[in-house]
């Protein structure tokens, strides 16, 4: 009888364990970095340790990737007057990957658009509309291919008057590095919100996919929800950073060809895929390319494994075929037209 009581007790404890297991405890942290707010959530026994290491990594990457800090390596490169600058291996590798992505997008993504971004006041927040002549000059100084990388010699150089900035890929790259860190720590369930960039590691603790909301560009709530496992979800839209002058809205995503805001009939582009860096860079590039050319790019590059959500200026939505089963419209948006593209 005693043994049975013990068995029963053990069974009850097991049940209780299963029950609380449904609400596995999460370690959470909020980090202010890279000019945004990031929230880190890690599930499992190593949560606290993983969050602490993730926070440290984010601060390290912030110092490595910034172009505004006068002590940063990119600032040194941008102000070297055309001379070779010695760079850290991680940064050089990222510049190389970013340059390759710029090339893949035919220059729709360009990491040398920084002087133009500055001229519009998007860094200083002192907004202004540059004149035509100035824009022509700015556009002539945007060319990712002019960045020379010497991987063996750990150095890089840029023609004078040009500047590199990694804003279009830094958060995506950070997501990749965080995912890599989680893999090293044996974490199987974590989600990182890096100022609008989402990096999902594994699935939720109960094995179901993460539910990631895509915000309505008009600020009215969650336009849609995508379910993802082990994926990055990144959105670029003109509504994220903009100013108005004389009744015209100017946003921060510039077309490298004109050095002016890219206007292609879209409110936002969301890219979902296995790599944060690729999703981040492509969300910008595809916003610049627009839906038609963006879809051509998507068909030409199945190896990237990305899926897309376009929100058009009229509010209608287009998604790529691979999202059909994981995409739903949000509450209050169920009357939106959704077109499936392939």
């Amino acid at each position, binding site marked *: 009888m005693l043994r049975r009581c013990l068995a029963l007790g053990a069974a009850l404890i097991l049940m209780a364990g299963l029950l609380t297991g449904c609400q596995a405890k999460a370690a959470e942290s*909020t980090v202010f970095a890279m000019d945004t*707010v990031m929230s880190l959530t890690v599930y499992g026994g190593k949560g606290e340790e993983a969050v602490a290491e993730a926070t440290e990594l984010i601060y390290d990457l912030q110092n490595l990737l910034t172009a505004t800090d006068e002590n940063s390596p990119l600032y040194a490169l941008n102000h070297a007057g055309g001379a070779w600058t010695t760079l850290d291996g991680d940064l050089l590798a990222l510049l190389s990957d970013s340059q390759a992505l710029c090339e893949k997008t035919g220059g729709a993504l360009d990491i040398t658009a920084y002087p133009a971004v500055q001229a519009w006041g998007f860094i200083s927040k002192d907004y202004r509309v540059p004149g035509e002549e100035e824009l022509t000059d700015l556009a002539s100084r945007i060319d990712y291919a002019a960045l020379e990388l010497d991987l063996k010699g750990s150095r890089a150089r840029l023609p004078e008057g040009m500047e590199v900035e990694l804003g279009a890929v830094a958060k995506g790259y950070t997501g990749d590095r965080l995912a890599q860190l989680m893999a090293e720590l044996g974490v199987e369930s974590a989600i990182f*919100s890096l100022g609008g960039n989402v990096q*999902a590691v594994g699935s939720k603790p109960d094995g179901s996919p*993460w*539910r990631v*909301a*895509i915000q309505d560009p008009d600020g009215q709530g*969650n336009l849609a929800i995508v379910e993802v496992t082990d994926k990055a979800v990144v959105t670029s839209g003109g509504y994220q950073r903009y100013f108005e002058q004389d009744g015209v809205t100017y946003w921060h995503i510039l077309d490298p060809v004109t050095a002016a805001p890219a206007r292609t009939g879209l409110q936002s582009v969301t890219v979902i895929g296995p790599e944060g860096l690729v999703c981040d860079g492509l969300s910008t590039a595809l916003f610049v390319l627009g839906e038609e050319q963006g879809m051509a790019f998507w068909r030409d590059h199945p190896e990237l494994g990305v899926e897309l959500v376009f929100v058009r200026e009229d509010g209608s939505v287009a998604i790529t075929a691979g999202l059909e089963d994981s995409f739903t419209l949000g509450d209050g948006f169920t009357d939106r037209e959704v077109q499936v593209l392939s």
Partner: protein
Amino acid sequence: MSRNAKLILLLLVLVGAACAAFVLLRPAGEGTVARITLDGKLVEEIDLSAVTEPYTFTVEGPGGFTNTIEVEPGRIRVREAGCPDQVCVNQGYISDGTVPIVCLPNKLVIEITGGGDSLDAATG
């Protein structure tokens, strides 16, 4: 099977059913709770669904600025702030978990948890 074994089996089934009932019938949202943090540290948690009279209070953040927060039944906003960009003030009231109020210069975050659809993150 012995009587005791049957008893244990019955108990196990009951416990299992109770567990399932708890998980399934648990209320979806325990009200709307606003969580206010400064530089990631929790300052205050307010159950907005339990607020009856509006009130305000002021916090001072690591940025050296103050944010005056106005709490009303079901919603919350930053009424005044000493920060340079006033993004937090201009955002107005929030009442759900869609977009948190963030004052970057002062490292203030007001986010709402509980209630509504269960989402893990948002992009945009």
